[in-house]
């Protein structure tokens, strides 16, 4: 919306001429494609001020410049500047919908609102499956089954609809080179034997899964840019990024000044792709250890800090990588953890699910739930990640 060219906004003529005279147009994307955030630039973009009025204005400038500056840049009086802001705001503001209209649209899409994972208990907890149009995160310690889960999802994305799939292409971004098509076919043969017995179907399914292996963040960024077009042209129905944390750590090796920046841009980009293309986006995340409980309490909770130290000491204290900003931004977070000899999938963050955990194992047919009845988890335990692996060397 904010990238609409000014000629398409229905502004009053005198304002339209004024803004056009200041070259207030958006040169970023052509009209048919939806709004996507621009890639980051190394330096600060020059903003138009009264001293250099030749710099191009954008919608963001009109809305964020102070009134006096805007008056100087537009060379107009205060009422005109205010009227310009009001009209541009009205045009740039996304259309309003009532929640009832959203519900009716969801009902109209039917089952298209979810990607069923074939893990019945998890699907029920998530309200049908992985939500479409939102960012879902799978986080857990290494070797617990995240990639296996993603392989199964990739398969489900490619399967025809009468087998419960999305019947479309799948884009799998593999940063750690963990994608194994042999393993994926094996999962397919064990989980959906009737499908894979048919001649040529396995090849067709596998042919729908596009795997890219970016070696750096700039590669990833470039491929995402090209993906905008790919998504629309090739009817991609699922996007899997495995794993996000590896990409960010690649970038950190070069010690650029913008440590947080690539993450932020990638985050907005993934969210907007999910939303506009109406596809589920699944991202994998790693864990890192946290040695102390710093950064976990508010200032008014200071007196409680000492009490918690001893309880958290026995399990290895793991937290999800990529920070708290990432944790806020994802819509659904599935935590894979292991303790007391079993592995669990926990629905840690979801706008519409209760806090439940399901025990699972990884078999030849991929990730399978041991029980469809979830175990209710109370308190902040739902977000904690525990890993008690077997230490072979200790025996």
């Amino acid at each position, binding site marked *: 919306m904010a990238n609409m060219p000014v000629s398409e906004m229905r502004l009053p003529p005198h304002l339209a001429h004024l803004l056009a005279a200041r070259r207030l147009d958006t040169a970023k994307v052509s009209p048919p494609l939806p709004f996507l955030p621009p890639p980051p630039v190394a330096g600060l973009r020059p903003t138009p001020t009264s001293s250099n009025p030749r710099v191009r204005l954008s919608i963001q400038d009109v*809305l964020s410049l102070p009134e006096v500056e805007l008056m100087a840049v537009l060379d107009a009086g205060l009422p005109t500047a205010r009227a310009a802001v009001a009209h541009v705001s009205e045009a740039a503001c996304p259309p309003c919908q009532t*929640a009832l209209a959203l519900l009716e649209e969801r009902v109209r899409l039917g089952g298209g609102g979810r990607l069923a994972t074939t893990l019945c208990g998890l699907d029920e907890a998530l309200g049908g499956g992985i939500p479409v149009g939102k960012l879902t995160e799978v986080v857990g310690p290494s070797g617990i089954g995240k990639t296996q889960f993603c392989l199964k999802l990739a398969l489900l994305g490619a399967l025809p609809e009468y087998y419960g799939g999305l019947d479309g292409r799948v884009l799998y971004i593999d940063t750690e080179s963990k994608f194994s098509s042999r393993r994926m076919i094996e999962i397919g043969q064990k989980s959906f034997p009737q499908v894979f017995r048919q001649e040529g179907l396995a090849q067709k399914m596998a042919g729908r899964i596009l795997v890219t292996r970016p070696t750096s963040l700039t590669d990833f960024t470039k491929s995402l840019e090209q993906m905008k077009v790919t998504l629309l042209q090739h009817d991609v129905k699922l996007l899997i990024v495995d794993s996000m944390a590896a990409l960010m750590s690649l970038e950190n090796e070069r010690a650029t000044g913008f440590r947080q920046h690539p993450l932020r841009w990638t985050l907005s980009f993934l969210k907007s792709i999910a939303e506009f293309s109406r596809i589920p986006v699944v991202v994998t995340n790693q864990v890192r250890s946290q040695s102390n409980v710093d950064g976990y309490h508010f200032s008014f909770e200071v007196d409680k800090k000492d009490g918690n130290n001893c309880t958290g000491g026995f399990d290895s204290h793991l937290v999800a990588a990529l920070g708290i900003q990432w944790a806020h931004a994802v819509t659904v977070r599935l935590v894979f953890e292991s303790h007391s000899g079993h592995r669990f999938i926990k629905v840690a963050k979801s*706008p519409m699910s209760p806090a439940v955990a399901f025990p699972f194992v990884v078999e030849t047919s991929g990730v399978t739930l041991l029980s469809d009845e979830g175990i209710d988890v109370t308190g902040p335990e739902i977000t904690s990640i525990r890993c008690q692996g077997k230490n072979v060397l200790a025996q």
Partner: protein
Amino acid sequence: MVVMVLFAISAGPTGSSDLIFLLRTAPALPPRLLIRRPVSRRSSADRPRPASHRSSSAGSARSSGSCCSSSSAPPPPRRRRFLAGGSDAGRAVATRRVLDMGAGENNPLGAQNAWDMLSEEQSQKHITTGSGDLNGILGGGIHCKEVTEIGGVPGVGKTQLGIQLAINVQIPVEYGGLGGKAVYIDTEGSFMVERVYQIAEGCISDILEHFPHSHEKSSSGNKQLQPEHFLADIYYFRICSYAEQIAAINYLEKFLGEHKDVELCIYTSQVRIVIIDSVTFHFRQDFDDLALRTRVLSELSLKLMKIAKAYNLAVVLLNQVTTKFTEGSFQLTLALGDSWSHSCTNRVILYWNGTERYAYLDKSPSLPVASAPYAVTGKGVRDVSSNHKRVRVT
């Protein structure tokens, strides 16, 4: 016999004069010394109205008429006024009337006196949050005409609370609610319609539980107690960048004006709450220039406060957390910085305490800091003691 003594000391244009009026009313009553008010030069211009009120409010027993007769016409400048003596109530009323300055030619300041504000505040209804304990620390619920900021760690229930408020504001007036509509500005995409439907159903079932003799249709006929009607009154905006966020808030004023005029019946249903979920997201993503960010945010908060006051609605902003290095260690704090923390009238922080979710009222102009537990159940935000297990959506 009425004796009146009037002293006018140098009522000339340059002198500063004090007028002392002695009024002897009835013989039985002692003479009363009238209140002498030191008056500034300018204010005599805005005195004619109080003067005329004073003559009517002082009562007939006080024959201040003769003193006031000269004041029925607009007084010449520098002529001092006096306040009628009399009973305390009369004096209080007269004082109040003098101080009562509505905006207009009599009141260039556009101020409102504290007594009027108090009576207005006491008649305001609050938006219930669904949990009695939480309402208790908030003084009854979310206040209208104020901006409330609610922040917390991911997964603690900020969006749940936001959706609950969007539904609770629509509780009809006869059941103790505001009967208003809601505007929900979603920047993160966490607004899930099925969950809203579930919460609306929960709210309706609670209403029917507390008011068992009501029918499906409320008595005024305005709002049927159906979840679809509740959903139809939530206006949803999906924002994808900070420019759109600013544009939406600028446009909001026009939007509210349009929706105010449409319904002219007595139980006018207007927007009574604006929820922004979350105000932080785009400002953390897209900004390199922190000075610009601070300025844009402060303009945003001023506009929101203006909307809250002008349209008598509540503004609820949901915020994220970040870590800050204070007092030698990293602690959690709400995002967007220190300058933003001054912008909101009230601040509530949601956190985990043991296995329960707690809400901590961190900043409020009239209430003490306090904590209260709450729970997120299948029906929405409720008290901890209630036994509603969170039911999964089928």
